[in-house]
């Protein structure tokens, strides 16, 4: 499966999840998991945007993706710090700002190491 196809799948999943949320609102159906669908949809949409223009070998693609994801998480952490948001609640899981920060650092590290493998 090429990157283009995978991107297509991400976009479709994102669209579907948004649609599920809207339909739930329209039909008046409510269960706790429905509230998580917009966030999941956003994540898949972010993946769709982040996988744009990935080129090269598999390692190169993975490296590029790790850097991009790291940058996104870093931006989210920056927003959380500036807006004084302590944590995000996804269903019963709370994601704290410092966890987001370390995740972004970890992803930058992964990208860095993969770069060494590429050479």
């Amino acid at each position, binding site marked *: 499966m090429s990157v283009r196809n995978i991107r*297509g*799948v991400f976009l*479709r999943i994102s*669209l*579907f999840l948004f*649609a*599920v949320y809207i*339909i*739930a609102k*329209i*039909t*008046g*159906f409510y269960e706790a998991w429905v509230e998580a669908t917009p966030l999941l949809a956003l994540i898949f949409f972010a993946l769709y945007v982040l996988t744009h223009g990935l080129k090269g070998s598999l390692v190169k693609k993975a490296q590029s993706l790790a850097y991009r994801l790291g940058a996104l998480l870093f931006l989210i952490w920056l927003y959380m710090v500036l807006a004084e948001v302590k944590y995000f609640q996804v269903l019963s899981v709370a994601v704290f700002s410092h966890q987001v920060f370390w995740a972004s650092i970890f992803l930058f590290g992964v990208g860095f190491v993969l770069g060494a493998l590429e050479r």
Partner: protein
Amino acid sequence: MSGSRIIALKALIRAFIVFIILYIIVKLVALATGEVLIQEDILRYIMLGLLFLTISVFISFPETRTLLYGHSKLGDVRYYLSQITIYLIILALFLHYLSKVFAVALIDLKSVFLIVCAALAVVIFSDLVVQEKKVFGLEKLKVVPVKVLKAPRFKRIRFNNELELKLRTDSVILVIDGDYKGACIYGDSYLYIDSLFYSFGAFPRKRLRGFTLILSKGLKIPKGLEEVESSEAESYVQDFMEQNRILNKILERVKELIEEELRNKAIVATEEGDGIKIFKLWRLCALEDRSYRLKVVNLGGLNMSEIKWLVALRDSRVILLKHSDGYMIVKCRTGFLKKLEKDCRKCCDV
């Protein structure tokens, strides 16, 4: 056909605007005087219903339908399922309103939710799972003339559900059979195509002068037409053979052009399996062969394989064809064949 849809779309958009204005007025009055003119919920539900109806009409336009779903069997299924989903959503809106305002639960809303979600999942993901295999169709057309008939003006010739020709002058019809059924019309005629592409400007106008070649899966010739004398018929047969040769050359060149672009990894991709080749041409992609001034535009569908029907003018200056998943327009200059043969001779000499 599209005219009524355009009117419906305009009416729905205007109705939607009216309800938005009404909603704003109700809100302002409530803010200013505290008086509730009408329940806001009703307006909200009506607005949502109108929005979905507008979407339904919008996707039913042939152009939109072709761009979104293509013309394969799966595309048709996805289109009809989308329409059903939209009407289910409107129904769900109504039921939700009833349950909210009057506390009347006619049916379980969870089941409606699950059905709509399942239908949407099929619409969004089905073409990833089910991939239709088709036989490739840009091969040489093997067709032979069967008989030559004289037809008075104003006669109608029906080809399939989409194509109809009305003769404008006294004409000669050369009936064709083989891979496709069809006709060569020698005389002016009006072409009626129950589909999208007049808006894309495939042909300069509906009236086609002098010569039209139509190949299709079916053909209904009016009864009681006289056959042309054999000596005269021979000249029409000769002319058709020449026209068919030009058409085949152009189709061959179009195929080469697509394959050249494939090598350049430009705008097209291909899938091969079990000896079947399917070109994937991006929607609205345009290919151009400058040396022969040949332009190819793919409208709509992605999977270019079988040709459903084809309409061509003399010397194949303009070809309009419907393939398995959409439409394609091919335009080339007059004298294509002469230039091609001249270039071919040059290559052979070298």
